[in-house]
Structure formats: C-alpha cells, structure tokens
C-alpha cells in the first residue's frame, strides 16, 4: 500500500515536471524571460557586491562632497541646522560656517559641491529639508548660470556624480536622477564599479588601497562644509594682467537659459512652502576681475526680483576698503574664489546682514550645552564668545577691565592649534564706534619660562577679519609666557 502511494506520488511529481517542461518549451517567451531575468540578476548582483565591497571606490582624500554630506547626516542627528547654505565652490571657499555660527549663536552648515548648478542645489535642498528644518536658506548665485545638465562631460559631470552619490535618500535620488543626468550616465550615478572600472588600467594603487583591510581613521572634528583652498591673495603677476589685458570675466557674457530660471523658481517655492526665509548671496571676485558687471547683475536681478526674497550682493556695491587683494585667489582664470581672509570678511558681512535686515526668529543657542559642545574653541568662537572659567587650556586674564580710555570686556590667552605660541586676545563691546584704526596696549606682568617675573607692554592689533557683531577684537601672537596679570591698558587710535 505504502509502495503504491509512493509510486503514485513519484508519478505525480514526474508528470508535474513534464508539465512544467512542456510549459516552458511550448512557451519559449517564458523560458527566455526567466533565463534573461536570472542572467541580468546575476550581473546586477555582481556589480552590487563589488560596490558594497568598495573595490572601485575613488580616493576619499579629496572627496569633499561626500565628506560634507556624511558630516551633514551626522550633525543633524543631534542638531537642527538653522542656516543652510547651498551653492558651489565659491560658497564653500567664501563663507565660514563655524564663524557664522559663532557670531550668530546658531547652527549653520554649507552643503555645496564644486562646479555644481542650481538643479543639483534644488535637489540637495529638498533632501536636506527632509532631515532638518532651517530658518534661513542661503543660495549662492554663481550656480545660477547658463548650463545644460545633459551635456556635461568629464569634470563637471564627475562632480555632479559625486554630489549625487553622496546623498543617501534612495527615493529622492531616483526622482532627481532624470533631471540631473542623461540616461547614459545613470549607471555611473549609482555604481562606483561602473564609474571607476578604468582603475584596472589607470589606478591600481587605489584598487589595492580599497582592498586593504586597514581603513583610515578619521579625526572626529566638527565639519560644517567649509573648505580652505586658498590662503595667499592676489600677487603682482595677476594684477599686472588686469592692467594689460583687462578683466577676464565679462559681465556681458553672462546669460541665463531655462534651467536656472525654472529651478530658481522651484527653490523659491520650496522655501515659501516650508516657511523658510531665502537669501540669495553673491560673493565677490576682485573688482578688476570682472568688467561690465552691471549686465550680469541686471540679468540676475530680473530673475531674483520675481520673489520677495533677499539678495546680498557683495560684488556690487563693492567694498573696496575690506575686499582687498588679500581676499582673492591669485588667478586670472574665470573662476576666482576667495581666500581664507576674504571668507572671514564675507562671513561677518553675511552675519551682519542676517542680524540687521532679516527679522527671522533665529534661535539663540549660545547658552545651549549642545551648541557649546559643538562650537567651543572652534574658528571664530573666542572672537565672539567668552572663554569658559573651567577651561584649562585657554585662560581668562581679565574681565570687565577698565583702562584709561576703554572698558575691555575680556582679555584671554589662547592656545594655538599649531606651534607653541599663544594668542593674546582682547574684546571690547561694539557700540558702533569705528576702532579699525586703533591698537590696544596692555601692560602685562609675566613670568617667562625660566620663572623670572617682568612687566611688558604688549601692543594688540585690531582684527579686521573678525569684526564681529558684538565685539571689537584685538589680537597678538605671543611667545609661551606665563602671564600673571594685566596691570594697565590704553587704546591708541590714529
């Protein structure tokens, strides 16, 4: 009986297979579809595996875009970004988010990619708004120009791909892809294996590095999207070119096509719908670097005037007093970025603009422990905020110290990140008076390293770069002296 049942079962099984085989042979389309699907799946899995293992990952040493986005996701886990800045390289070299945050007491972050354009900016903003709720969004205007994302090649396309792959929201990436790339570039947008397969011939070192189990330890530092690229300003060779050849950038060449028009409008609407104040920001190039800027400005104005948003244009009127040659990259190329010095001046101007012109209910986070944890000791912090008493590295020498002709809010001795020298810094409340031509002399009782006490007169110079909103800052680098106390002080003005 059991044998019979077994036989019956076997027979059933056989006829099922026969039926199945019959189905497939009689329906070759099904057979082909199954085989093709299986085959494609195997190929896709192979690529996905290679991508996940990172065999063809590019060098991360210069991938600032990915670093920015990773840092953004990390930062927004515990913090809300109050001021979000978007744009291209002009922005991340021209604004210092740490200083901006330190001046205003907010969290600001730059989400900018090199060579990017307003479409990428729009989709980056959309993704960012899913994660954080900024009060102010600032769009740098160099990305608003004539371009066609579908015609990008090599350089700009590579940056565009980096920006795309750095974003993590799968759905928003899928939605944005057709607007950012032509179809032939879709595979490169998703897969490092497909994008960088050429490493097999051109960059074996990177392949070996990618396969090595040792992963570089990253310093856990607050990174808000700033990238210091240029430290020295314009030099004689370029200045001579301005005189002999004229300006390399012609404002009359600046035209707009449909893409920037449509996407600027989309950004305006997006901010409006989210109750966000929108500022358009134009960072300057050296005034001799552009001629006929008014045409450029006119074209841009036509576009930006359609919305009741703010436009802070530092190119015009141009601040000749502060934006000196030290503020600009030494180049005659079309793209001229700002130096570290220039960025500090621009940042303070932006902070002032936000504080004076924009009546937004920005949070004041200077007393929030989280904010202090993030920003204490970072760039621009001590120029705008007090040294904490419990700080063992940085020392307060005096507070509310009245001298012959001025009341000094704070004198402190700060450790420098590099070297043994220290920084002597004094802050005086900004009551609107102009102290930019003044210097502060302090009589200081010190003991040097060999412990012999002495009194020195030290001259502190006015810090034009950190001209904060609340304070005038005077500074001088000093040798590693043990400063005991401030004896006296006097403000000298020309």
């Amino acid at each position, binding site marked *: 009986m059991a044998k019979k049942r077994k036989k019956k079962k076997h027979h059933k099984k056989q006829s099922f297979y026969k039926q199945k085989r019959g189905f497939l042979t009689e329906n070759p389309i099904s057979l082909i579809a199954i085989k093709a699907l299986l085959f494609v799946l195997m190929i896709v899995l192979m690529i996905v595996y290679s991508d996940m293992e990172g065999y063809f990952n590019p060098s991360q040493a210069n991938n600032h875009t990915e670093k920015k986005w990773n840092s953004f996701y990390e930062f927004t886990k515990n913090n809300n970004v109050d001021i979000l800045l978007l744009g291209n390289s002009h922005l991340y070299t021209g604004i210092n988010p740490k200083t901006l945050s330190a001046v205003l007491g907010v969290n600001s972050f730059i989400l900018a990619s090199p060579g990017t354009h307003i479409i990428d900016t729009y989709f980056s903003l959309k993704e960012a708004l899913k994660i954080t709720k900024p009060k102010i969004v600032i769009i740098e205007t160099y990305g608003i120009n004539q371009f066609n994302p579908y015609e990008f090649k090599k350089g700009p396309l590579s940056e565009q791909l980096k920006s795309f792959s750095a974003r993590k929201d799968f759905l928003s990436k899928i939605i944005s892809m057709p607007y950012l790339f032509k179809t032939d570039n879709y595979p490169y947008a998703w897969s490092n294996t497909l994008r960088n397969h050429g490493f097999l*011939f051109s960059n074996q070192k990177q392949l070996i590095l990618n396969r090595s189990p040792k992963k570089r330890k990253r310093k856990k530092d607050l990174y808000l999207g700033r990238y210091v690229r240029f430290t020295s300003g314009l030099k004689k060779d370029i200045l001579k070119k301005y005189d002999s050849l004229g300006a390399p950038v012609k404002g009359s060449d600046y035209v707009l096509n449909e893409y920037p028009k449509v996407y600027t409008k989309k950004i305006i609407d997006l901010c409006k719908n989210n109750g966000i104040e929108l500022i358009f920001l134009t960072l300057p190039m050296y005034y001799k670097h552009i001629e006929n800027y008014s045409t450029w400005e006119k074209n841009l104005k036509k576009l930006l005037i359609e919305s009741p948003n703010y436009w802070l244009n530092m190119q015009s009127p141009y601040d000749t007093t502060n934006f000196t040659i030290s503020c600009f990259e030494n180049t005659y190329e079309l793209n001229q970025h700002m130096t570290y010095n220039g960025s500090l001046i621009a940042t303070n101007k932006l902070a002032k603009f936000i504080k004076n012109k924009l009546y937004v209910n920005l949070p004041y986070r200077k007393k929030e422990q989280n904010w202090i944890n993030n920003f204490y000791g970072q760039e621009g912090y001590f120029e705008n905020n007090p040294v904490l008493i419990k700080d063992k590295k940085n020392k307060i020498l005096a507070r509310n110290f009245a001298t012959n002709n001025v009341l000094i809010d704070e004198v402190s001795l700060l450790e420098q990140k590099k070297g043994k020298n220290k920084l002597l810094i004094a802050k005086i409340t900004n009551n609107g008076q102009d102290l930019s031509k003044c210097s502060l002399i302090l009589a200081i009782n010190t003991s040097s390293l060999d412990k012999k006490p002495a009194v020195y007169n030290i001259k502190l110079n006015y810090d034009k770069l950190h001209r904060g909103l609340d304070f005038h800052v005077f500074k001088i680098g000093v040798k590693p002296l043990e400063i005991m106390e401030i004896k006296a002080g006097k403000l000298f003005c020309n």
Partner: protein
Amino acid sequence: MEFNSIDFGIFFTIVFISYWILFNKNIKQRNIFLILISYLFYGWWDWRFLSLIIISSFIDFIIGNKIYEETDKTKKKRLLLISLSVNLGFLGFFKYFNFFIGNFVEAFSFLGLETDSIYLNIILPVGISFYTFQTLSYTIDIYNKKFEPTKDLSAFFAFVSFFPQLVAGPIERAKNFLPQFYELRPISYDLIRSGLLLMTLGFFKKIVIADRLSLFVNSAYSDLQNIDGVVAIFAIIFFAFQLYFDFSAYSDIAIGSARTIGFKLSKNFNSPYLSSSFSKFWNRWHISLSSWFKDYLYIPLGGNRASSIKVTQNILVVFIVSGLWHGASWNFIIWGLINGLFIILLDPILNKRHNELYSKISKAIFVSLAWALSLVFFRSQTFYDAFTMFENLFKGNKNILYNYSLNSIEFIFTIGLLIFYMLFEILVEVYPNIYKLIINMHFLIRWSLYLSIISFIILCGSYGLDVDDSNFIYFQF
C-alpha cells in the same frame, strides 16, 4: 539612438517584450508596430529627418508599382529616373552640396574667375546613404524585372525603416528582406539565443576593443605634427582594426537584434583581415555594400566581360564612387581610387597559386597592411594631414609610445586583445562550427562563459567619463 546607449537598452527590452507578447499575432499590426518603433529609434537623433525617410518610402512604393504596371519602356525608364532623382537628390543635397559648391568655386578661382560661394549649413541625416541604397535597389530590381513590387504599404515602410539596420546597414535587398515582412514567424528560442549572443559579441568588439583603439588613434591624429614613427605606425594599424571592430560590431548588433524578433539580415563581414587578395578582401568587408556596387554599378558598366582596359576602368569607377559614398571629400575619393588600384595592380600577383599556409598568412598580412595604409586617407581630415601622417612614418622615436591616451598596461592589453581576437577568427575560419560547439556545452560551462564575457565587458570596456566619443564610425556616412 545609439546601440551602445542605455536608451537603446530600455528601448530594445520594451520592443522585444511587446513584440512577442502583443504584436506578433497580426501581420499588419506587427508591421505598423515595427514602423513606429523604427521611427522612434531614428527620431531619437533628429525627428525632422524622418520626413526624408517617409517621402522616400512613399515615392518608391508608388513608383515601384507604376514601373511594374507600365509596359512602355520609355515611361518605365522615366519612372525609374524619378525614383533615382528623388533618392539621389536627397543624398546629393544633404551629403554633397557643399563639397561640389566648394570644388566649383575653387575651379573657377583657378581659372581666375571670382564667384560668390554659397555654402549651406547642412546637417547630414544619419544613415541616409544606407537607406537610400536600400530603396534604390528595390526600384532598380523591379525595373530589371528581378522582383515584383509589394502592394502592402506597411510591409514596404517597415522594410525601409527597419530599425536594426536603418542607420548603418547591412544594406538589404528587397528580394531577400521584404518577403520577411509578409509573414509571421513563431518565436524561436534558438534564434533569440543566437541573436543575443551575436549582440554580446558586438558589444564586446565595440566597447572593449574598438573604443579602446579609438583613444589612441584619436589622440595620435589630433597631434599629427608631433607624433613619431612608432606612434604613426601604431595609429595606422590601430585605425584599421578600430574601423573593422567598430563597423562589424554595429553589424553584429544589428543582425543580432533583428534575429531576436525573428528577422534574418545578411552577413556584412567575414573575417576580412584573413583575405589573401584584395578582391577577396572586398568579398569579406562590408559585404552588403560591395555586392550592391557589384550588382548595380559594376555589372551594368560591363563587369568582367569586357576588354581589360574597360574592366580596369569599371573597377576604378566603382571604387571612386564607393569612396564618394563614404564621404564628400577628396580624401575618400583617393582612398577609393587606391583600393581600386590595389585590385588592378596587386591582385594578379597575389592570386598566383601558392596555397601553403605561410604564403596565405603573408598574403593576408600584406593585404591588411596595404589596406591600413590606404585608410590614412579615410581617417585624415585633409590631404595635408594624410601626407603628414605618411611623413611621420619615417621619423625616429623620441616620445614615449604610451603618451597617447593608453598607458603601458592598457596598450599591452590592447595588443593582446587584437592577437586573441585574430586567433579566434582563424579558429572560426578553420572550425566554422565552433559556435554550435559552445551552444551544445553543459549549461554551467555555457553560463560561466556568458557571465565571464559580460563581466569582461563591464570591467575592461572602454566606456565612462573619460571616453569622449563612442559613436559608431559609420554613422557619419
């Protein structure tokens, strides 16, 4: 739409599925579907030029029937002339207008007469030379009573515009190809599999070999003033291989994709670099065009059945016209002329019977090298460029060979690929059933082989952001 694009990948998948599931049930519906997708395929480049195909198809359809019905020989001739004028008129205007105007102006100025030159900003419609020749063969065959015209408008339109071979051939004869639009064929697993395999081979040739060779060739030709002897030698040899792999890849993909939807296109290449004479070479290279010229130009001119002077003249005419077909420039005419002269002057020597293997190999190498040298005119923009390239052959070697877009590893890899592929062609020549052998292998071995080839294309293909130009060369004709 290019074959080597994502657009085509999406297009082809949709077409393949919808063709077999929805449209292979009714001939008319199937043909209309083929017309629409072919127009979509073509319109992806420039939809404006679709009008040329439509007009050309319409006129040839009507004239073909009129010629067949007409009994008066003069009227028949007149109708044929109308068809020729329309088709060659389009081709002449879009391809040769500026060339002829330029030559007239130069000729006049040579005679001391100043003329105002009227150059037009004309864009060459993709594939115009191919589909024009295809439709011409239709009316000429009807005129010569070799073929009966079709009454089925949709079949004819589908025949003219059939997307796999519309822009770069193979140039099909109506006699062989048009009847395929009259019938529905059941789905064939074997045909689809062989089609897909052929497409894969095409992609391999194009992406891995041709596009890699193009990096070196483009780089060398754009630096003609500075390249050294060795670079020039490699640029010339590499271009010969690039052209072969590029064009045969296109043909493979075209034939393969047609097969997947049940259509059979004729073979366009048959290991031409294994030819032991120039006439054999032309029987193996761009077969559909060579045979077109043979049937519609060489034989009507008298062919071989004439005095030796007349035969020589016929050969030269065919090759000069063939050069002109490729492009409106004197370089192409000279290229054609040189190849004609090769047949006239060298073939009598090469055709002497020496059947030893070494003799065959040395003849094949000689033919291929001579062909490669003639291609200098084909590849160069001007006469001056071509002569500079020849001059460069006699220079020493100061620069490093690997400065021209291929580094040492990639260069050696490329040479290895060429040797490998030529050995493979020899193997196929000796054992023509090798494909069957592969197909009959155990499925695990087969699938491993397929996966390896695809992986090889993905990892070793020359594509991506660093490759500026991956268009098929024959698109420009």
